[in-house]
């Protein structure tokens, strides 16, 4: 088990390196002079030189790459071009709302989607199945921010059931924190749920066609115990993969949701940085979110080994 985890950890390192390399090279891939693009057309020569020096663009590219990795290892993501504060500080002060939305949404989506997906597979080709499928097909076609605004219009503006937008830190007022997150979590959750329910259904349906399920039925086992003891046990691994995939979708989705509901998280930070062309913040935010994504995938892989001893010995 320990050896397996170590092997997986080591396998993650090259991925993290490549991700960092890609994010480093983004700025150099654009046509033209990145510093000129960032300061815009109306900048003075001094402003241009300052941005060039701040980003280290006046040095040879290999030196820049070396410094990027050296700083990264030391936890230094650079300094914001507009506010002159360290990028990591800005990220630390905005990461909590993002985590709150992401984790609550994942819990909401998973607890509803998995039972729905299993039910749809179990009752395949009945009206229950069709309702779940129609709902989930529409669910992943809807633009997330559009659903958010329609929810604000119906539940906040017309019915007044929940606040339209905003965010309160959990350590300030826990009740307010949850109340303000209802609409963001439900609107994002429904989209993520659509995907998870659909994939769960496909997985369980596949397992239900296996020979051992037929055998279990043939020997006279009750339908429910065939489902719970035989089918679900074997469907759990792919379902966990789906939860991981759902989390990836979520990290992109949260960026959108934060901008609908005015939640001061990483997504807001990123969008503000894009409008100001504050490239160190853009790079830092994307790097952190991608690292979180890679780590979630690592956790998914490790949980496989806990659940299925066969994987440990491969």
């Amino acid at each position, binding site marked *: 088990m320990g050896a397996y985890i170590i092997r997986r950890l080591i396998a993650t390192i090259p991925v993290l390196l490549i991700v960092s390399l890609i994010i480093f090279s*983004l700025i150099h891939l654009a046509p033209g002079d990145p510093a000129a693009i960032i300061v815009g057309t109306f900048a003075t020569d001094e402003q241009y030189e300052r941005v060039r020096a701040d980003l280290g663009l006046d040095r040879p590219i290999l030196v820049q790459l070396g410094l990027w990795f050296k700083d990264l290892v030391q936890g230094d993501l650079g300094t914001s071009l507009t506010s002159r504060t360290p990028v990591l500080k800005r990220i630390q002060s905005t990461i909590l709302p993002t985590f709150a939305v992401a984790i609550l949404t994942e819990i909401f989506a998973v607890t509803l989607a998995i039972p729905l997906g299993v039910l749809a597979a179990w009752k395949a080709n009945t009206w229950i199945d069709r309702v779940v499928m129609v709902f989930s097909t529409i669910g992943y076609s*809807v*633009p997330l*921010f559009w659903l958010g605004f329609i929810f604000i*219009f119906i539940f906040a503006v017309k019915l007044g059931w929940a606040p339209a937008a905003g965010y309160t830190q959990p350590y300030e007022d826990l009740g307010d924190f949850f109340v303000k997150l209802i609409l963001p979590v439900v609107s994002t959750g429904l989209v993520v749920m659509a995907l998870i329910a659909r994939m769960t259904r496909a997985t369980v349906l596949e397992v239900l066609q296996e020979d051992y399920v037929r055998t279990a039925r043939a020997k006279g086992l009750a339908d429910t115990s065939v489902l719970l003891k035989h089918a679900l046990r074997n469907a759990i691994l792919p379902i966990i993969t789906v939860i991981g995939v759902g989390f990836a979708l979520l990290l992109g989705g949260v960026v959108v949701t934060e901008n*609908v509901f005015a939640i001061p998280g990483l997504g807001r930070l990123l969008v503000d940085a*894009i409008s100001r062309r504050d*490239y160190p913040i853009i790079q830092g*935010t994307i790097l952190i979110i991608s690292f979180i994504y890679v780590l979630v995938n690592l956790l998914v892989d490790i949980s496989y080994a806990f659940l299925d001893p066969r994987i440990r010995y491969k």
Partner: protein
Amino acid sequence: MTLETGLGTIITVRPPTRRWDAKRIASRLWRGARRNPNMAYGIGIVALMVSIAVFADLLFTEPWKPNPLVRFTSPTWSGGHWFGTDNIGRDVWSGTLFGARISLIVAASVSVIAIGAGGLLGMISGFFEKSDMFIMRFVDGLMSIPSILLAMALMALLGGSVQNVIIALSVTETPIAVRIVRSAVLSIREMTYIEAAKAIGVQPVRMIFKHIMPNVVAPLIVQGTFIASAAVLLEAYLSFLGAGTPPEIPSWGVIMAEAQQYITRAIWVIMFPGIFLTLTVLGISLAGDGLRDNLDPRLRRRM
């Protein structure tokens, strides 16, 4: 392919599957659409969207320009503004129809570029082991960055334009196509007919185009439809986040992004483009699901 040896034997080497010609694809689709009504609905919706995009000028639209006399008109049948007007009096019906053009152009371009580039890289990666490691590491890295974020970062440097949206989304969608093609190539590579082709000395380039590619086309077309539906959504997300289509061009994302400031006053401005966008994505995905089931039965899944 024949080869005459000194003994007069003829060895025939041919792929086990038939080539995909247009007629065969069409007949498969027709049969599939009758058996699978969802796919027929999907193709119907896509056809409808394509026709409103092509004929938008004839469908009682007016130019996407401010008209201060008719600000915030609610949707009416009689008043000429079927979908109402926005905060500066632009006709939402016209904007929605013109928006279909932008979305479909983005969707079609991104999917063609991504399956073209992805197909080529995937085949190189699957076929030449030396390049495989290099290409796949890079693909893994690209896929570890959520696509909307990568696209935003690219847009921040490229600047807002429809062309740049297409470039940015092609970068984020290509890796998926590379993976699909590579895994298809890896399984095809082990087949006997490839071994036979190698044995009689078929050159790698010819091998790729004549023997491997025909068997990769079906999964690639299916993936192309899923990329197209993702591109429609991502264009809207980018525009909503202020990193996509520039504000003067009426794409669905742009109209909805502007409409968010006055949803309490004019919900219709955000509602109609959103419904059209959802229908388009739904149509493309339903068609894609149907294509997957019909073009390549091996890929058939109950999803």
